[in-house]
């Protein structure tokens, strides 16, 4: 330090440099360097003390959370059971493979590699690539499930080189009767980003392989079916290799849901619809239990639950028979003549004597205009009007009592109403009346509106479920509500307080439709002592100038409808069959007949079905698979991928269903010229071939 001052004390700044000053400088600066080194050492020691003491707790926690990995064990989903306890949706143990897009360094190459390892089809590989490309990083994308052990093992041994690929043992949803319950039960799929956010970023939702309900009952009962996830604490390395298990808590399976649906009946009805597009609803008249809610054609929920494939989606989208629409709830059709018995009940209530007759001269003059009937029935009373579906009778009496009164009865019978059911979407339909028309179109109610509405045409719209409910209510005289879930809440339904003989009269008339001189004589049940009562309906969808309703383009053909109950004198079951564009009621009542036959005598019903399926080329499931294969072979490369979110698919389907329901409104402002609906239609399935078997059975 002395030298510092001495050199600084020189008068001239031009320093004299010699060995001594250099040595002094060296000493000074080496002290400086030594101090810097000591300072750094002190700094390091303090820093280390800070990390190890002040921040010890924080880093100890982080070290633990590094070391211990908590994996959720997805809960097994609750089963969905039919009324007799057999599963409509269950779980199957299987092996599966997912990828986490964010962790894939080269997604396409990796998917190719997995694809060739598992021998996936090219279009499936293309789908996965597409999905991985657009998915948000955290969400696992399913590559394949239901793998056998060899495939699983082949993949597992290569795992160290496959970052982001997650093979695991798990459970996958299984629907034993596949397409038959597609619309009713829905399907499951991985949660999307919105659902993940909605549930407060529940980590379970992004657990690879975990699926939630996406449609139908699977979605409605998500909370009950889900169960409680288990957890596994494991010690893991940085690369995710598990060193050892620390502790495991088992999952708790979700609660089962028991439906009122009769599984075999549901399957039978779905298969019986065959090549047609339509729905079958069967209810229990005592409890309102829905035994069957079949809607065909449908999708296979098993395959949807593996992820909706582009080819499959395109095939279903392009089908004009809309396999994605649940026609039981979202199909709206003019009910046609099927509501005539109900209208009769309103006439009775208004004090019309059932014996009171009119003359049908191939039609009837209402006001100053002549409205045609589909046939010339001569003298017609109420029984004959129902049995032979005489339109003139309804023109006359609807005009006489006023349609407001008729519409009020229809509303009380559930038309235009929703029922308390755990379903995503039910369509209301329409019961037109003067004030409704005034409000909706700003036009006056005209006599021809009464004429149209009196025979279930015009603005009238009903869903198959509503038709089945009105049929059950009419058969029993009780306000029966449909029930889909088996629980203890069955109460005796309130009564409409109709007179006993009025109910008996209508029952008899509807029985005569089938068993007397009616319009559906071939719907007679081939079972001793059980007589079916029903009412046919043929609903026009376009004007006579466009189509005759039986031939020509499918979408212009008449809808075929049939409502029924059995046994006619002590109703136990009631229901409705609606065949879209079936060409008339002849397409509907043979199905009702076979379904009811199956209900009373399964063997007889199945025999009739097998005969038909031989002609159709297999069961509904088999045909769906065949069609898919053919479609994939033909169009596989050109399809457009499905929307990203499953919800979009079904929102679109619903919107289109509403649009489709308006089809018949276009001709509602005109007079409907009713059609003969006595003969069974010639459109597929040719039910003539079904008859010999039945006739033979009857002999």
């Amino acid at each position, binding site marked *: 330090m002395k030298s510092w001052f001495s050199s600084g004390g020189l008068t001239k700044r031009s*320093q004299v*440099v*010699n*060995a001594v*000053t*250099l*040595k002094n*400088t*060296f*000493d000074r*600066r*080496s002290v400086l*360097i*030594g101090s810097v*080194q*000591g300072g*750094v*050492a002190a700094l*390091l*020691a303090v*820093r*280390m*003390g800070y*990390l*190890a*003491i002040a*921040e*010890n707790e*924080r*880093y*100890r926690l*982080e*070290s633990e959370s*590094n*070391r211990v990995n908590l994996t959720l064990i997805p809960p097994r989903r609750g089963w969905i059971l039919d009324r007799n306890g057999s599963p409509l949706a269950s779980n199957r143990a299987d092996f599966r493979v997912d990828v986490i897009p964010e962790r894939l360094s080269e997604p396409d190459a990796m998917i190719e590699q997995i694809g060739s390892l598992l021998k996936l089809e090219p279009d499936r590989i293309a789908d996965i690539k597409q999905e991985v490309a657009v998915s948000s990083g955290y969400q696992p994308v399913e590559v394949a499930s239901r793998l056998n052990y060899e495939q699983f093992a082949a993949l597992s041994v290569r795992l160290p080189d496959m970052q982001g690929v997650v093979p695991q043992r798990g459970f996958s949803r299984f629907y034993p009767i596949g397409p038959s319950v597609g619309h009713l039960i829905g399907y499951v799929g991985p949660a999307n980003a919105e659902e993940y956010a909605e549930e407060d970023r529940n980590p379970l939702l992004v657990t690879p392989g975990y699926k939630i309900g996406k449609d139908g009952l699977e979605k409605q009962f998500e909370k009950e079916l889900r169960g409680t996830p288990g957890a596994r604490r494991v*010690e*893991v*390395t*940085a*690369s995710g290799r598990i*060193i050892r298990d620390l502790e495991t808590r088992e999952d708790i399976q979700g609660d089962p849901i028991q439906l009122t649906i009769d599984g075999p009946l549901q399957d039978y009805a779905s298969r019986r619809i065959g090549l047609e597009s339509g729905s079958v609803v069967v209810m229990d008249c005592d409890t309102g239990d829905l035994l069957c809610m079949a809607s065909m054609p449908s999708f296979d929920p098993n395959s949807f639950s593996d992820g909706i494939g582009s080819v499959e989606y395109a095939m279903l989208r392009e089908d004009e028979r809309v396999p994605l629409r649940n026609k039981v709830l979202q199909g709206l059709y003019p009910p046609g003549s099927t509501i005539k018995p109900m209208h009769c009940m309103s006439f009775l209530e208004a004090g019309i004597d059932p014996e009171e007759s009119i003359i049908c001269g191939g039609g009837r003059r209402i006001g100053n205009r002549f409205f045609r009937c589909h046939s010339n029935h001569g003298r017609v009373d109420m029984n004959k009007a129902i049995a032979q579906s005489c339109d003139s009778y309804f023109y006359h009496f609807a005009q006489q009592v006023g349609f407001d009164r008729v519409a009020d009865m229809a509303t009380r019978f559930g038309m235009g109403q929703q029922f308390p059911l755990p379903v995503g979407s039910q369509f209301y339909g329409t019961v037109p009346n003067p004030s409704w028309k005034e409000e909706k179109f700003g036009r006056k109610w005209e006599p021809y509106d009464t004429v149209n509405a009196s025979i279930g045409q015009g603005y009238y719209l009903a869903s198959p479920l509503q038709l089945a409910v009105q049929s059950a209510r009419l058969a029993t005289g009780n306000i029966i509500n449909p029930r889909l879930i088996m629980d203890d809440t069955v109460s005796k339904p309130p009564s409409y307080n109709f007179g006993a003989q009025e109910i008996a009269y209508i029952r008899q008339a509807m029985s005569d439709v089938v068993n007397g001189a009616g319009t559906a004589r071939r719907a007679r049940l081939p079972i001793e002592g059980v007589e079916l009562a029903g009412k046919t309906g043929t609903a026009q969808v376009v004007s006579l100038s466009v189509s005759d309703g039986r031939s020509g383009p499918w979408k212009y053909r008449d809808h075929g409808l049939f409502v029924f109950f059995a046994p006619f004198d002590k109703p136990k079951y009631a229901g409705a069959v609606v065949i879209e564009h079936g060409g008339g009621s002849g397409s509907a009542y043979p199905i009702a007949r076979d379904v009811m036959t199956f209900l009373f005598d399964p063997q007889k019903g199945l025999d009739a079905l097998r005969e038909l399926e031989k002609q159709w080329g297999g069961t509904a499931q088999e045909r769906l698979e065949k069609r898919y294969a053919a479609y994939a072979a033909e169009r596989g490369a050109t399809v457009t991928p499905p929307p990203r979110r499953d919800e979009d698919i079904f929102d679109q389907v619903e919107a289109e269903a509403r649009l489709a329901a308006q089809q018949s409104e276009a001709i509602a402002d005109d007079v409907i010229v009713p059609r003969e609906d006595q003969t069974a239609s010639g459109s597929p399935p040719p039910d003539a071939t079904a008859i010999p078997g039945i006739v033979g059975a009857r002999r």
Partner: protein
Amino acid sequence: MSAQRSGIIPYPIARQPWGMLIPLFALVAFGAAVLYSAAGGSMQPYASSHVLRFGVALVIALVISALPRDFVRLMTYPAYVVVLLMLVAVEAMGALRGGSQRWLQLGPMVLQPSELMKPVIVVTLALFYSSLPNSMVTNWRALFVPGAMIVMPVGLVLMQPDLGTSLAIAFGGGVVMLLAGLPMRWFIGAGAAAAALAPLVFLFGLKEYQQRRVMTMFNPEEDALGAGYHITQSKIAIGSGGIFGKGFNNGSQSHLQYLPEPHTDFVFATMAEEWGLVGGLFVIAVFSVILRWGMGVARASRDRFASLIAAGMSATIFFYIAVNLMMVMGMAPVVGIPLPFMSHGGSSMLTNMICIGALMMVRRWNQNAPKGGLSGT
């Protein structure tokens, strides 16, 4: 010194600097224990080769310590030229093979010339300044020639690219220049220029991954799975060790591979996790003893050449230690510099032992030099 005359211990052994060597041996043994744990409780593959390399390097250091002063002075410039040519050769080989390369294959031996350059640059500059007439020290030529001597190897090493080693070379050379008595204002000016240029170098001179490393030093948690991963995991290892550590062989951060490079660059974190603050303070203390001894050797020398060598060598070792420890504690970017005597790695062991050998050599010269007399040049 008293042992010198006791006669019980033979002179060649007694004259060794045991005050430095015993802590050094302890540190290497401690390093071997940490490497044993880093290998999952096994001498293989790190611990045994660590001890073996130290043994070989110690022999080399003893050989160096026996070199006479005139021989060193004679060989200094040729050695500098040879190492520089080897750096050029490495660069040429890399260009030929179409990739970056840092080492030369000489028969069975793998040589990393950039490592050799660290001690060589110190000796070269020490020779230059000791042979420079005293009056010339403040002349611009005293800056220009050594500047070129530093810039050439630093540039070549940067091209490899190896930022850590090039900084070590520049640091060693810079310390020698500082101690040689160059005007202080030049260093202050250079420091100011460096501060001004740093942002420019950061933006245009560094590769993207290097920029990221610098940025993550300031906020490692920002990118805990990317570039900040190393620093974060290292801090977790050190912090979770606490005062006494998790116990030998019980470090989960290193054993479960959360800690990157647990046996080389992050060996200190591996040690701290298992031995805690106590182990860390021991290591820092040993390094302090070694560096204090090194600076003491430098100051004790009356020979300008020798004292510059000793100070430069100490500074080179210091640079390794400081950068490595600051890095593992999250105070410096990840530059890939190993911790002397503890990290597993032949090159760094050799370089640091050459520095130790050179310090022992200077100490021997000091002992042989006439006491109190002016040695000069």
